[in-house]
């Protein structure tokens, strides 16, 4: 008989339950299986009502993030065999998010915050198309490339205690993405983002726990992005004191 492993999965049905509870499922422990494979096995063979998000199975779509034994993980990239010695593997919805059902979290709050930081290229001038594309050197690309790898999986939100304690906090992924556009030489919108970012609910809400960076599956380093922006925002503030007239807030956020 093949080896088995027990999954303790958080179940919550809003029309029936007051609080979530755990349900145990025994699944085959296959060497090549990730946690998501086990969830799919349960949904296909054991209990079709199990609800969770997933799509690409290869760490691109960012929809299968869950708490696995208390750690925020992409379940498509977390092998069951690495929990082989554990009595059971606990699978819960991402921490600090409202739970819609079973392992599905509500993302509306995150999406509002994401929109707030204007994560797109903002241009003051709009040169005609005939002038061609905006060119960028490898060095200019390198300045923001790391922060552009974010897949919005929200693992960093589930890792950040500030997100849990202060629901107004914009949060790691949105702040890192704001910095990604601030550092892009084609963008002219850093002054527009300044009010949202240099705010107690923005970068100054971050206490540099650093967990967002540790759990990020794409090595985005949101904590680094936020600290770097803190430095530029502080320098910008000092400059506005020394040179009140010559100060150019349009450059805020750019080193």
């Amino acid at each position, binding site marked *: 008989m093949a080896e088995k492993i027990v999954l303790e999965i958080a179940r919550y049905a809003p029309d029936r339950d007051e609080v979530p509870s755990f349900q145990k499922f025994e699944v085959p422990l296959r060497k090549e299986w990730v946690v998501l494979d086990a969830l799919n096995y349960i949904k296909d063979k054991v209990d079709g009502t199990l609800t969770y998000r997933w799509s690409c199975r290869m760490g691109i779509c960012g929809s299968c993030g869950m708490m696995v034994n208390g750690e925020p993980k992409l379940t498509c990239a977390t092998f069951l065999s690495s929990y082989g010695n554990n009595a059971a593997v606990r699978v819960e919805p991402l921490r600090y998010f409202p739970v819609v059902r079973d392992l599905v979290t509500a993302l509306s709050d995150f999406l*509002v915050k994401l929109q707030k930081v204007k994560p797109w290229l903002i241009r003051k001038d709009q040169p005609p198309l005939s002038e061609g594309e905006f060119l960028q050197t490898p060095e200019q690309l390198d300045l923001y490339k790391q922060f552009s790898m974010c897949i919005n999986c929200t693992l960093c939100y589930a890792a950040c205690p500030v997100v849990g304690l202060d629901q107004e906090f914009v949060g790691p992924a949105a702040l890192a993405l704001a910095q990604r556009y601030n550092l892009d030489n084609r963008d002219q919108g850093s002054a527009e983002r300044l009010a949202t970012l240099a705010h107690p609910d923005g970068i100054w809400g971050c206490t540099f*726990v650093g967990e967002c960076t540790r759990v990020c599956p794409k090595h985005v380093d949101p904590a680094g992005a936020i600290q770097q922006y803190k430095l530029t925002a502080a320098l910008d503030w000092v400059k506005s004191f020394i040179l009140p007239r010559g100060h150019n807030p349009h450059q805020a956020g750019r080193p």
Partner: protein
Amino acid sequence: MTDETMTDPTMTDQAARSEFHPRWYRERVSTWWWLGEWHYLKFILRELTSISVAWFVVLTLFQLRALLRGPEHYARFASRLESPFMIALNAIAFCFVMFHTITWFNLAPRAMPVRMGGKRIPEFLVAAPNYGLWIAVSAFVGWLILRTP
């Protein structure tokens, strides 16, 4: 959609539950959230080290005051520091300040991505000068105190 389903104090701005999700579950964060995980505990300890830093600042100010008041006052100040309680307190505070310094230096490269020739230099090269300066200043202060007059 009624107004009632749109307003939820736990949501910011227009984000709210829809009529298809009339209810959801949100767990309250425990006051003791930082005890459960070593990473969180390490963060809280790092934050608490600021008390030790403040303690040494206050101690130094008192030392300066004693120094200004003359040798008699300074001798009294020094003898107070020799009590077992003060030695224990300072030993603990010293450990915390070490923890503060090391964790802070290790975090420095994250806040300051230094670039040379268009490339980001390795993290240890940003942290190393901090450690180097720390050791140099400590060695100088040590030499100043321990040299025989």
